[in-house]
Protein backbone atom coordinates (compact mmCIF):
# COMPACT_ATOMS: atom_id res chain seq x y z
CA UNK A 1 0.00 0.00 0.00
CA UNK A 2 1.22 3.50 -0.74
CA UNK A 3 2.51 5.25 2.30
CA UNK A 4 0.34 8.34 2.12
CA UNK A 5 1.47 9.72 5.43
CA UNK A 6 5.13 9.78 4.43
CA UNK A 7 4.31 11.11 0.97
CA UNK A 8 2.30 13.91 2.54
CA UNK A 9 4.92 14.72 5.12
CA UNK A 10 7.63 14.69 2.47
CA UNK A 11 5.66 17.08 0.26
CA UNK A 12 5.06 19.39 3.18
CA UNK A 13 8.71 19.47 4.16
CA UNK A 14 9.94 20.11 0.64
CA UNK A 15 7.48 22.94 0.01
CA UNK A 16 8.14 26.55 0.83
CA UNK A 17 5.65 28.83 2.48
CA UNK A 18 3.67 30.04 -0.57
CA UNK A 19 3.23 26.47 -1.81
CA UNK A 20 2.04 25.40 1.62
CA UNK A 21 -0.44 28.24 1.90
CA UNK A 22 -1.70 27.51 -1.59
CA UNK A 23 -2.09 23.82 -0.80
CA UNK A 24 -4.04 24.55 2.34
CA UNK A 25 -6.38 26.91 0.50
CA UNK A 26 -6.85 24.46 -2.37
CA UNK A 27 -7.80 21.68 0.01
CA UNK A 28 -10.08 24.01 1.97
CA UNK A 29 -11.78 25.12 -1.25
CA UNK A 30 -12.45 21.54 -2.31
CA UNK A 31 -13.73 20.59 1.13
CA UNK A 32 -15.87 23.71 1.36
CA UNK A 33 -17.43 22.92 -2.04
CA UNK A 34 -18.54 19.47 -0.90
CA UNK A 35 -22.19 20.44 -0.26
CA UNK A 36 -22.49 21.10 -4.01
CA UNK A 37 -21.39 17.54 -4.78
CA UNK A 38 -24.73 16.21 -3.59
CA UNK A 39 -25.91 15.05 -6.98
CA UNK A 40 -22.89 12.92 -7.79
CA UNK A 41 -22.02 9.38 -6.74
CA UNK A 42 -21.42 10.77 -3.27
CA UNK A 43 -25.14 11.33 -2.78
CA UNK A 44 -26.60 9.66 0.26
CA UNK A 45 -29.84 7.85 -0.57
CA UNK A 46 -32.03 8.77 2.41
CA UNK A 47 -30.67 11.77 4.27
CA UNK A 48 -29.75 14.94 2.38
CA UNK A 49 -26.06 15.01 1.58
CA UNK A 50 -25.43 18.41 3.11
CA UNK A 51 -27.08 17.25 6.31
CA UNK A 52 -24.88 14.15 6.41
CA UNK A 53 -21.86 16.39 6.03
CA UNK A 54 -22.85 18.18 9.22
CA UNK A 55 -23.96 15.16 11.18
CA UNK A 56 -22.51 12.61 11.42
CA UNK A 57 -19.43 13.50 9.39
CA UNK A 58 -18.48 16.97 10.63
CA UNK A 59 -19.47 16.22 14.21
CA UNK A 60 -17.58 12.95 14.17
CA UNK A 61 -14.45 14.65 12.91
CA UNK A 62 -14.68 17.28 15.61
CA UNK A 63 -15.26 14.75 18.37
CA UNK A 64 -12.64 12.35 17.05
CA UNK A 65 -10.09 15.18 17.08
CA UNK A 66 -10.95 15.87 20.70
CA UNK A 67 -10.88 12.23 21.73
CA UNK A 68 -7.61 11.78 19.88
CA UNK A 69 -5.90 14.16 22.28
CA UNK A 70 -6.87 11.89 25.15
CA UNK A 71 -6.55 8.45 23.56
CA UNK A 72 -4.13 8.94 20.70
CA UNK A 73 -1.75 11.53 22.07
CA UNK A 74 -1.77 10.83 25.78
CA UNK A 75 -2.61 7.14 25.67
CA UNK A 76 -5.54 7.19 28.08
CA UNK A 77 -8.44 5.02 27.01
CA UNK A 78 -11.63 7.03 27.44
CA UNK A 79 -14.85 5.14 26.79
CA UNK A 80 -17.16 7.88 28.01
CA UNK A 81 -16.25 10.71 25.70
CA UNK A 82 -19.89 11.23 24.69
CA UNK A 83 -20.52 12.59 28.18
CA UNK A 84 -18.76 15.86 27.28
CA UNK A 85 -20.72 16.05 24.06
CA UNK A 86 -23.87 15.59 26.12
CA UNK A 87 -22.89 18.26 28.63
CA UNK A 88 -22.33 20.74 25.81
CA UNK A 89 -25.60 19.78 24.11
CA UNK A 90 -27.65 20.02 27.29
CA UNK A 91 -26.09 23.36 28.20
CA UNK A 92 -27.22 24.65 24.82
CA UNK A 93 -30.64 23.07 25.14
CA UNK A 94 -31.36 24.40 28.62
CA UNK A 95 -29.99 27.90 28.14
CA UNK A 96 -31.28 28.15 24.58
CA UNK A 97 -34.87 27.37 25.53
CA UNK A 98 -35.02 29.17 28.86
CA UNK A 99 -32.91 32.26 28.44
CA UNK A 100 -32.50 34.78 25.70
CA UNK A 101 -28.93 33.77 25.02
CA UNK A 102 -28.10 32.69 21.49
CA UNK A 103 -25.86 29.86 20.33
CA UNK A 104 -22.70 31.93 20.10
CA UNK A 105 -23.20 33.30 23.58
CA UNK A 106 -23.88 29.82 24.94
CA UNK A 107 -20.88 28.29 23.16
CA UNK A 108 -18.27 29.44 25.70
CA UNK A 109 -20.58 28.48 28.56
CA UNK A 110 -21.10 25.01 27.08
CA UNK A 111 -17.38 24.57 26.56
CA UNK A 112 -16.69 25.70 30.11
CA UNK A 113 -19.31 23.30 31.45
CA UNK A 114 -17.76 20.42 29.53
CA UNK A 115 -14.30 21.39 30.78
CA UNK A 116 -15.62 21.46 34.30
CA UNK A 117 -17.08 17.99 33.77
CA UNK A 118 -13.66 16.98 32.45
CA UNK A 119 -11.96 18.16 35.64
CA UNK A 120 -14.60 16.42 37.75
CA UNK A 121 -13.93 13.16 35.95
CA UNK A 122 -10.18 13.58 35.79
CA UNK A 123 -9.33 14.37 39.39
CA UNK A 124 -10.46 11.10 40.92
CA UNK A 125 -9.81 8.82 37.96
CA UNK A 126 -6.44 9.82 36.60
CA UNK A 127 -4.58 7.87 39.21
CA UNK A 128 -5.89 4.85 37.36
CA UNK A 129 -4.32 3.50 34.23
CA UNK A 130 -5.24 1.39 31.25
CA UNK A 131 -8.23 -0.89 31.65
CA UNK A 132 -9.25 0.58 34.98
CA UNK A 133 -9.40 4.07 33.56
CA UNK A 134 -11.45 2.77 30.63
CA UNK A 135 -14.02 1.21 32.94
CA UNK A 136 -14.39 4.34 35.05
CA UNK A 137 -14.79 6.60 32.03
CA UNK A 138 -17.35 4.20 30.61
CA UNK A 139 -19.25 4.50 33.87
CA UNK A 140 -19.03 8.28 33.76
CA UNK A 141 -20.51 8.36 30.26
CA UNK A 142 -23.42 6.26 31.40
CA UNK A 143 -23.94 8.30 34.56
CA UNK A 144 -24.35 11.47 32.55
CA UNK A 145 -26.87 9.83 30.22
CA UNK A 146 -28.85 8.14 32.99
CA UNK A 147 -28.90 11.35 35.00
CA UNK A 148 -30.38 13.18 32.03
CA UNK A 149 -32.85 10.36 31.53
CA UNK A 150 -34.11 10.58 35.10
CA UNK A 151 -34.17 14.34 35.50
CA UNK A 152 -37.68 15.50 34.69
CA UNK A 153 -36.49 19.08 34.93
CA UNK A 154 -34.57 18.65 31.71
CA UNK A 155 -37.17 16.62 29.90
CA UNK A 156 -36.33 13.14 31.09
CA UNK A 157 -36.54 10.57 28.32
CA UNK A 158 -38.24 13.05 25.99
CA UNK A 159 -35.30 15.39 26.08
CA UNK A 160 -35.60 19.04 25.20
CA UNK A 161 -37.26 20.33 22.06
CA UNK A 162 -37.42 23.74 20.44
CA UNK A 163 -33.74 24.58 20.74
CA UNK A 164 -33.15 27.67 18.63
CA UNK A 165 -30.94 27.72 15.56
CA UNK A 166 -27.84 29.84 15.75
CA UNK A 167 -28.55 33.42 14.70
CA UNK A 168 -27.28 34.06 11.19
CA UNK A 169 -24.21 36.13 10.66
CA UNK A 170 -25.36 37.90 7.52
CA UNK A 171 -26.96 34.65 6.33
CA UNK A 172 -29.69 32.37 7.60
CA UNK A 173 -29.19 28.92 9.10
CA UNK A 174 -31.85 26.74 7.46
CA UNK A 175 -33.15 23.27 8.09
CA UNK A 176 -33.46 22.27 4.46
CA UNK A 177 -30.20 23.72 3.29
CA UNK A 178 -27.46 23.00 5.77
CA UNK A 179 -24.56 24.50 3.87
CA UNK A 180 -24.05 27.19 6.50
CA UNK A 181 -24.05 24.66 9.29
CA UNK A 182 -21.45 22.72 7.35
CA UNK A 183 -19.26 25.74 6.77
CA UNK A 184 -19.49 26.75 10.41
CA UNK A 185 -18.42 23.33 11.54
CA UNK A 186 -15.64 23.44 8.98
CA UNK A 187 -14.36 26.62 10.61
CA UNK A 188 -14.53 24.91 13.99
CA UNK A 189 -12.60 21.92 12.68
CA UNK A 190 -9.90 24.10 11.13
CA UNK A 191 -9.58 26.02 14.37
CA UNK A 192 -9.24 22.81 16.38
CA UNK A 193 -6.64 21.39 13.98
CA UNK A 194 -4.67 24.60 14.24
CA UNK A 195 -4.64 24.56 18.03
CA UNK A 196 -3.82 20.85 18.29
CA UNK A 197 -0.96 21.17 15.83
CA UNK A 198 0.46 24.00 17.89
CA UNK A 199 0.23 22.07 21.12
CA UNK A 200 1.67 18.94 19.55
CA UNK A 201 4.99 20.46 18.57
CA UNK A 202 5.40 22.28 21.85
CA UNK A 203 5.76 21.42 25.46
CA UNK A 204 2.25 20.02 26.08
CA UNK A 205 2.61 17.74 23.05
CA UNK A 206 5.90 16.39 24.29
CA UNK A 207 4.46 15.91 27.76
CA UNK A 208 1.47 13.95 26.39
CA UNK A 209 3.69 11.93 24.11
CA UNK A 210 6.07 11.03 26.92
CA UNK A 211 3.16 10.06 29.17
CA UNK A 212 1.80 7.79 26.47
CA UNK A 213 5.11 6.06 25.96
CA UNK A 214 6.33 5.65 29.53
CA UNK A 215 4.47 7.45 32.24
CA UNK A 216 6.93 6.65 35.02
CA UNK A 217 9.95 7.71 33.01
CA UNK A 218 8.11 10.90 32.04
CA UNK A 219 7.39 11.70 35.66
CA UNK A 220 11.02 11.10 36.60
CA UNK A 221 12.15 13.38 33.79
CA UNK A 222 10.19 16.16 35.42
CA UNK A 223 6.94 15.99 33.49
CA UNK A 224 4.05 16.78 35.80
CA UNK A 225 2.08 13.82 34.49
CA UNK A 226 -0.98 14.39 36.63
CA UNK A 227 -1.32 17.97 35.47
CA UNK A 228 -0.86 17.17 31.80
CA UNK A 229 -3.24 14.23 31.98
CA UNK A 230 -5.88 16.53 33.41
CA UNK A 231 -5.13 19.04 30.68
CA UNK A 232 -5.54 16.35 28.03
CA UNK A 233 -8.92 15.41 29.48
CA UNK A 234 -10.05 19.00 29.83
CA UNK A 235 -8.86 19.97 26.38
CA UNK A 236 -10.60 16.97 24.84
CA UNK A 237 -13.71 17.78 26.85
CA UNK A 238 -13.70 21.37 25.57
CA UNK A 239 -13.81 20.18 21.98
CA UNK A 240 -16.53 17.64 22.76
CA UNK A 241 -18.52 20.32 24.57
CA UNK A 242 -18.21 22.77 21.71
CA UNK A 243 -19.36 20.10 19.28
CA UNK A 244 -22.28 19.33 21.60
CA UNK A 245 -23.46 22.95 21.74
CA UNK A 246 -23.47 23.18 17.98
CA UNK A 247 -25.10 19.80 17.59
CA UNK A 248 -27.99 20.72 19.88
CA UNK A 249 -28.46 24.03 18.16
CA UNK A 250 -28.64 22.37 14.77
CA UNK A 251 -30.81 19.43 15.77
CA UNK A 252 -33.39 21.58 17.59
CA UNK A 253 -34.24 18.60 19.78
CA UNK A 254 -32.02 16.40 21.89
CA UNK A 255 -32.75 13.42 24.11
CA UNK A 256 -30.64 11.14 26.30
CA UNK A 257 -30.81 8.56 23.51
CA UNK A 258 -28.46 10.69 21.43
CA UNK A 259 -25.68 10.15 23.93
CA UNK A 260 -25.34 6.42 24.39
CA UNK A 261 -22.21 4.36 24.84
CA UNK A 262 -22.51 3.52 21.14
CA UNK A 263 -21.50 7.03 20.21
CA UNK A 264 -18.43 6.90 22.46
CA UNK A 265 -17.39 3.62 20.90
CA UNK A 266 -18.03 4.88 17.40
CA UNK A 267 -15.87 7.96 17.95
CA UNK A 268 -13.17 5.75 19.40
CA UNK A 269 -13.49 3.57 16.31
CA UNK A 270 -12.94 6.67 14.16
CA UNK A 271 -9.74 7.41 16.04
CA UNK A 272 -8.40 3.85 15.89
CA UNK A 273 -9.54 3.26 12.32
CA UNK A 274 -7.95 6.46 11.05
CA UNK A 275 -4.73 6.18 13.00
CA UNK A 276 -4.36 6.93 16.67
CA UNK A 277 -2.33 10.03 17.39
CA UNK A 278 -2.30 11.31 13.82
CA UNK A 279 -4.82 14.12 13.35
CA UNK A 280 -5.02 13.62 9.59
CA UNK A 281 -5.61 9.93 10.07
CA UNK A 282 -8.30 10.64 12.62
CA UNK A 283 -10.02 13.03 10.22
CA UNK A 284 -9.97 10.47 7.43
CA UNK A 285 -11.24 7.80 9.79
CA UNK A 286 -14.11 9.94 11.06
CA UNK A 287 -14.99 10.99 7.52
CA UNK A 288 -15.25 7.41 6.33
CA UNK A 289 -17.02 6.03 9.38
CA UNK A 290 -19.40 8.98 9.43
CA UNK A 291 -20.19 8.70 5.77
CA UNK A 292 -20.42 4.97 5.08
CA UNK A 293 -23.54 4.07 7.08
CA UNK A 294 -25.50 6.85 5.40
CA UNK A 295 -24.18 6.05 1.94
CA UNK A 296 -25.32 2.47 2.23
CA UNK A 297 -28.55 3.14 4.00
CA UNK A 298 -30.43 1.35 1.19
CA UNK A 299 -29.04 -1.91 2.56
CA UNK A 300 -31.11 -1.12 5.65
CA UNK A 301 -30.09 -3.42 8.50
CA UNK A 302 -27.34 -5.14 6.56
CA UNK A 303 -25.40 -1.91 6.42
CA UNK A 304 -24.26 -2.31 9.99
CA UNK A 305 -22.98 -5.74 9.11
CA UNK A 306 -21.12 -4.23 6.19
CA UNK A 307 -19.84 -1.47 8.45
CA UNK A 308 -18.44 -4.03 10.85
CA UNK A 309 -16.95 -5.99 7.99
CA UNK A 310 -15.17 -2.91 6.63
CA UNK A 311 -13.75 -2.25 10.08
CA UNK A 312 -12.50 -5.80 10.51
CA UNK A 313 -10.95 -5.99 7.06
CA UNK A 314 -9.27 -2.63 7.33
CA UNK A 315 -7.93 -3.16 10.80
CA UNK A 316 -6.37 -6.37 9.55
CA UNK A 317 -4.81 -4.66 6.57
CA UNK A 318 -3.68 -1.62 8.51
CA UNK A 319 -3.61 -2.41 12.21
CA UNK A 320 -2.20 1.01 13.02
CA UNK A 321 -4.94 2.82 11.14
CA UNK A 322 -5.15 4.39 7.72
CA UNK A 323 -2.55 7.05 8.46
CA UNK A 324 -0.49 5.73 11.35
CA UNK A 325 1.26 7.83 13.92
CA UNK A 326 4.82 6.77 13.34
CA UNK A 327 7.05 9.67 12.58
CA UNK A 328 9.62 9.59 9.88
CA UNK A 329 13.21 10.18 10.72
CA UNK A 330 14.13 13.49 9.24
CA UNK A 331 17.71 12.78 8.31
CA UNK A 332 19.55 9.60 7.57
CA UNK A 333 22.77 9.71 9.54
CA UNK A 334 25.93 9.29 7.53
CA UNK A 335 27.83 6.24 8.57
CA UNK A 336 31.27 6.42 10.14
CA UNK A 337 31.25 10.09 10.92
CA UNK A 338 32.56 10.88 14.34
CA UNK A 339 31.09 9.33 17.46
CA UNK A 340 32.21 5.82 18.02
CA UNK A 341 29.47 4.44 20.21
Amino acid at each position, binding site marked *: MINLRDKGAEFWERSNRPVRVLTVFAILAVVAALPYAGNTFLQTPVAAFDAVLVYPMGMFILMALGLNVVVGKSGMLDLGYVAFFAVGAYTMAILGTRTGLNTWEIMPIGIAAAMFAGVLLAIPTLRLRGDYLAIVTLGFGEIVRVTALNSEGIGGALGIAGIPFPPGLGFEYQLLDQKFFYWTILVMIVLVIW*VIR*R*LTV*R*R*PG*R*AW*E*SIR*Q*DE*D*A*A*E*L*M*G*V*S*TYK*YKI*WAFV*FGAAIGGGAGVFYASRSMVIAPDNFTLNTSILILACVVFGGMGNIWGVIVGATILGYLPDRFRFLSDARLLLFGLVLVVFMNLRPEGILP*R*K*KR*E*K*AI*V*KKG*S*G*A*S*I
Partner: protein
Amino acid sequence: MSKTILNLKDLTIKFGGVTALNNVNLELKEGEILALIGPNGAGKTTVFNLITGVYKPTSGNVFLGDVAIDGKKRHHITKLGIARTFQNIRLFGDMTTLENVITGTDVRNKVGLIGSMFGTPRSRREEKASVVKAHEILKFIGIDEYADRLAKNLPYGVQRRLEIARALGTEPKILLLDEPAAGFNPQEKVELAATIKKIRDAGYTILLIEHDMSLIMGISDRVAVLDFGQKIADDLPSVVQNNPQVIAAYLGVPEDAS
Protein backbone atom coordinates in the same frame (compact mmCIF):
# COMPACT_ATOMS: atom_id res chain seq x y z
CA MET B 1 36.23 18.66 52.28
CA SER B 2 33.56 20.11 50.06
CA LYS B 3 30.06 20.31 51.38
CA THR B 4 27.48 17.55 51.45
CA ILE B 5 24.89 17.95 48.72
CA LEU B 6 22.82 14.82 49.22
CA ASN B 7 22.41 13.11 52.54
CA LEU B 8 20.65 9.81 53.17
CA LYS B 9 19.92 9.48 56.88
CA ASP B 10 19.03 6.16 58.49
CA LEU B 11 17.15 5.08 55.43
CA THR B 12 15.03 1.98 55.89
CA ILE B 13 12.47 0.56 53.54
CA LYS B 14 10.45 -2.60 53.93
CA PHE B 15 8.36 -4.35 51.32
CA GLY B 16 6.02 -6.50 53.34
CA GLY B 17 8.31 -8.67 55.41
CA VAL B 18 11.42 -7.96 53.36
CA THR B 19 13.73 -5.24 54.56
CA ALA B 20 15.27 -4.01 51.33
CA LEU B 21 17.35 -1.33 52.99
CA ASN B 22 18.27 -1.21 56.62
CA ASN B 23 19.52 2.02 58.24
CA VAL B 24 21.58 3.13 55.30
CA ASN B 25 23.52 6.36 55.70
CA LEU B 26 25.15 7.88 52.69
CA GLU B 27 26.60 11.30 52.00
CA LEU B 28 27.27 12.69 48.58
CA LYS B 29 29.78 15.55 48.43
CA GLU B 30 29.49 18.26 45.88
CA GLY B 31 31.45 17.53 42.73
CA GLU B 32 32.43 13.94 43.45
CA ILE B 33 31.77 10.66 41.73
CA LEU B 34 30.47 8.20 44.26
CA ALA B 35 30.08 4.62 43.14
CA LEU B 36 27.46 2.43 44.74
CA ILE B 37 28.27 -1.23 44.35
CA GLY B 38 27.09 -4.50 45.74
CA PRO B 39 25.94 -7.96 44.69
CA ASN B 40 22.65 -8.40 42.85
CA GLY B 41 19.68 -7.65 45.06
CA ALA B 42 21.75 -5.65 47.53
CA GLY B 43 19.39 -2.66 47.22
CA LYS B 44 21.30 -0.33 44.92
CA THR B 45 18.46 0.54 42.60
CA THR B 46 16.19 0.81 45.62
CA VAL B 47 18.46 3.60 46.85
CA PHE B 48 17.92 5.38 43.52
CA ASN B 49 14.19 4.85 43.75
CA LEU B 50 14.16 6.34 47.24
CA ILE B 51 16.18 9.36 46.18
CA THR B 52 14.02 10.07 43.14
CA GLY B 53 10.77 9.63 45.03
CA VAL B 54 9.60 6.41 43.38
CA TYR B 55 9.42 4.85 46.86
CA LYS B 56 8.83 6.45 50.20
CA PRO B 57 11.19 5.27 52.93
CA THR B 58 9.65 3.33 55.79
CA SER B 59 11.83 5.43 58.05
CA GLY B 60 14.69 7.85 57.62
CA ASN B 61 15.10 10.85 55.35
CA VAL B 62 16.69 12.01 52.17
CA PHE B 63 18.11 15.53 52.33
CA LEU B 64 19.00 17.58 49.31
CA GLY B 65 21.06 20.34 50.85
CA ASP B 66 18.97 21.09 53.93
CA VAL B 67 15.63 20.12 52.45
CA ALA B 68 14.04 16.75 53.13
CA ILE B 69 12.85 15.47 49.76
CA ASP B 70 11.47 12.07 50.73
CA GLY B 71 7.73 12.03 50.10
CA LYS B 72 7.88 14.80 47.54
CA LYS B 73 6.43 14.23 44.08
CA ARG B 74 8.81 12.66 41.60
CA HIS B 75 8.66 15.45 39.04
CA HIS B 76 9.18 17.94 41.83
CA ILE B 77 12.36 16.18 42.94
CA THR B 78 13.59 16.33 39.35
CA LYS B 79 12.92 20.02 39.38
CA LEU B 80 14.89 20.41 42.58
CA GLY B 81 17.90 19.08 40.74
CA ILE B 82 18.14 15.29 40.76
CA ALA B 83 18.02 13.38 37.49
CA ARG B 84 18.54 9.72 36.76
CA THR B 85 18.99 7.13 34.07
CA PHE B 86 17.46 3.67 34.07
CA GLN B 87 19.08 0.29 34.33
CA ASN B 88 16.77 -1.04 31.65
CA ILE B 89 16.65 1.66 29.02
CA ARG B 90 13.44 3.68 29.20
CA LEU B 91 13.66 6.25 26.47
CA PHE B 92 10.65 7.66 24.67
CA GLY B 93 11.13 5.41 21.66
CA ASP B 94 8.73 7.13 19.28
CA MET B 95 10.41 10.48 19.79
CA THR B 96 13.58 11.59 18.10
CA THR B 97 16.81 11.81 20.02
CA LEU B 98 16.49 15.57 20.13
CA GLU B 99 12.91 15.46 21.37
CA ASN B 100 13.90 13.12 24.16
CA VAL B 101 16.39 15.66 25.45
CA ILE B 102 13.98 18.56 24.94
CA THR B 103 11.40 16.70 27.01
CA GLY B 104 14.01 16.70 29.75
CA THR B 105 14.69 20.42 29.35
CA ASP B 106 10.98 21.17 29.66
CA VAL B 107 11.18 20.93 33.42
CA ARG B 108 13.00 24.27 33.40
CA ASN B 109 10.50 25.88 31.05
CA LYS B 110 7.78 28.06 32.47
CA VAL B 111 5.19 28.19 29.71
CA GLY B 112 2.37 25.70 30.08
CA LEU B 113 -0.54 24.68 27.93
CA ILE B 114 -2.23 28.04 27.66
CA GLY B 115 0.94 29.89 26.70
CA SER B 116 1.80 27.23 24.14
CA MET B 117 -1.69 27.36 22.70
CA PHE B 118 -1.56 31.09 22.08
CA GLY B 119 2.07 30.95 21.01
CA THR B 120 3.15 33.75 23.30
CA PRO B 121 6.54 35.33 22.58
CA ARG B 122 7.83 33.71 25.71
CA SER B 123 6.72 30.28 24.57
CA ARG B 124 8.49 30.75 21.23
CA ARG B 125 11.60 31.91 23.03
CA GLU B 126 11.59 28.93 25.35
CA GLU B 127 10.98 26.45 22.55
CA LYS B 128 13.89 27.84 20.57
CA ALA B 129 16.17 27.93 23.59
CA SER B 130 15.28 24.32 24.38
CA VAL B 131 16.32 23.16 20.93
CA VAL B 132 19.64 24.96 21.22
CA LYS B 133 20.24 23.59 24.69
CA ALA B 134 19.35 20.05 23.64
CA HIS B 135 21.78 20.18 20.74
CA GLU B 136 24.50 21.43 23.07
CA ILE B 137 23.92 18.52 25.41
CA LEU B 138 23.92 16.02 22.55
CA LYS B 139 27.21 17.45 21.31
CA PHE B 140 28.62 17.31 24.81
CA ILE B 141 27.69 13.63 25.08
CA GLY B 142 28.86 13.04 21.54
CA ILE B 143 25.66 11.85 19.87
CA ASP B 144 24.45 14.99 18.12
CA GLU B 145 24.67 13.32 14.72
CA TYR B 146 21.77 11.11 15.80
CA ALA B 147 19.59 14.10 16.73
CA ASP B 148 16.84 13.40 14.20
CA ARG B 149 16.73 9.63 14.55
CA LEU B 150 13.92 7.94 16.43
CA ALA B 151 15.20 6.81 19.81
CA LYS B 152 14.01 3.24 19.34
CA ASN B 153 16.06 2.88 16.16
CA LEU B 154 19.32 3.98 17.75
CA PRO B 155 22.20 1.59 18.35
CA TYR B 156 22.31 0.25 21.87
CA GLY B 157 25.30 2.31 22.96
CA VAL B 158 23.75 5.52 21.70
CA GLN B 159 20.54 4.73 23.57
CA ARG B 160 22.51 4.39 26.79
CA ARG B 161 24.20 7.71 26.14
CA LEU B 162 20.89 9.32 25.26
CA GLU B 163 19.60 8.27 28.67
CA ILE B 164 22.38 10.35 30.17
CA ALA B 165 21.74 13.24 27.78
CA ARG B 166 18.04 13.29 28.59
CA ALA B 167 18.83 13.38 32.31
CA LEU B 168 21.29 16.24 31.75
CA GLY B 169 18.51 18.06 29.92
CA THR B 170 16.74 18.60 33.23
CA GLU B 171 19.77 20.61 34.44
CA PRO B 172 20.35 18.54 37.55
CA LYS B 173 22.83 19.19 40.30
CA ILE B 174 23.07 15.48 40.95
CA LEU B 175 23.10 12.84 38.25
CA LEU B 176 22.20 9.28 39.18
CA LEU B 177 23.50 6.71 36.71
CA ASP B 178 22.08 3.22 37.01
CA GLU B 179 24.50 0.78 35.37
CA PRO B 180 25.36 3.04 32.45
CA ALA B 181 27.93 0.57 31.11
CA ALA B 182 25.68 -2.50 31.13
CA GLY B 183 26.22 -4.44 27.93
CA PHE B 184 29.21 -2.38 26.79
CA ASN B 185 32.41 -3.86 25.42
CA PRO B 186 35.75 -2.85 26.99
CA GLN B 187 36.39 -0.13 24.42
CA GLU B 188 32.96 1.39 24.98
CA LYS B 189 33.49 1.27 28.72
CA VAL B 190 36.67 3.31 28.40
CA GLU B 191 34.83 5.91 26.36
CA LEU B 192 31.98 6.00 28.80
CA ALA B 193 34.38 6.49 31.70
CA ALA B 194 35.82 9.50 29.89
CA THR B 195 32.31 10.88 29.35
CA ILE B 196 31.38 10.46 33.00
CA LYS B 197 34.55 12.26 34.06
CA LYS B 198 33.77 15.00 31.59
CA ILE B 199 30.30 15.40 33.07
CA ARG B 200 31.74 15.65 36.57
CA ASP B 201 34.30 18.20 35.43
CA ALA B 202 31.45 20.25 34.00
CA GLY B 203 30.21 20.69 37.57
CA TYR B 204 27.81 17.85 38.18
CA THR B 205 27.83 15.53 41.15
CA ILE B 206 27.45 11.89 40.19
CA LEU B 207 26.13 8.86 42.02
CA LEU B 208 26.88 5.77 40.03
CA ILE B 209 25.69 2.18 40.22
CA GLU B 210 28.01 -0.13 38.35
CA HIS B 211 29.22 -3.70 38.32
CA ASP B 212 32.33 -3.18 36.29
CA MET B 213 35.16 -2.89 38.83
CA SER B 214 37.79 -1.51 36.47
CA LEU B 215 35.42 1.26 35.46
CA ILE B 216 34.60 2.07 39.08
CA MET B 217 38.18 1.96 40.30
CA GLY B 218 39.17 4.21 37.42
CA ILE B 219 36.76 7.06 37.91
CA SER B 220 35.19 7.12 41.35
CA ASP B 221 36.37 9.29 44.18
CA ARG B 222 34.66 7.11 46.72
CA VAL B 223 32.95 3.72 46.75
CA ALA B 224 30.08 2.65 48.95
CA VAL B 225 29.20 -1.02 49.18
CA LEU B 226 25.75 -2.42 49.89
CA ASP B 227 25.06 -5.99 50.88
CA PHE B 228 21.62 -7.30 51.83
CA GLY B 229 20.35 -3.78 52.36
CA GLN B 230 23.19 -2.75 54.66
CA LYS B 231 26.07 -0.48 53.94
CA ILE B 232 29.19 -2.49 54.69
CA ALA B 233 31.86 -0.12 53.41
CA ASP B 234 32.30 3.48 52.31
CA ASP B 235 35.79 4.65 51.49
CA LEU B 236 38.38 5.34 48.83
CA PRO B 237 38.35 2.81 45.98
CA SER B 238 41.73 1.40 46.90
CA VAL B 239 40.67 0.86 50.51
CA VAL B 240 37.34 -0.71 49.67
CA GLN B 241 39.04 -3.03 47.23
CA ASN B 242 40.95 -4.69 50.05
CA ASN B 243 38.15 -4.64 52.63
CA PRO B 244 37.68 -8.27 53.72
CA GLN B 245 33.96 -7.74 54.34
CA VAL B 246 33.51 -6.54 50.77
CA ILE B 247 35.46 -9.43 49.36
CA ALA B 248 33.36 -11.77 51.45
CA ALA B 249 30.15 -10.19 50.18
CA TYR B 250 31.19 -10.69 46.61
CA LEU B 251 33.00 -13.99 46.76
CA GLY B 252 31.60 -15.58 49.90
CA VAL B 253 33.65 -16.76 52.87
CA PRO B 254 35.54 -20.07 52.88
CA GLU B 255 33.86 -22.45 55.31
CA ASP B 256 36.90 -23.05 57.46
CA ALA B 257 37.43 -19.32 57.92
CA SER B 258 34.03 -18.66 59.43
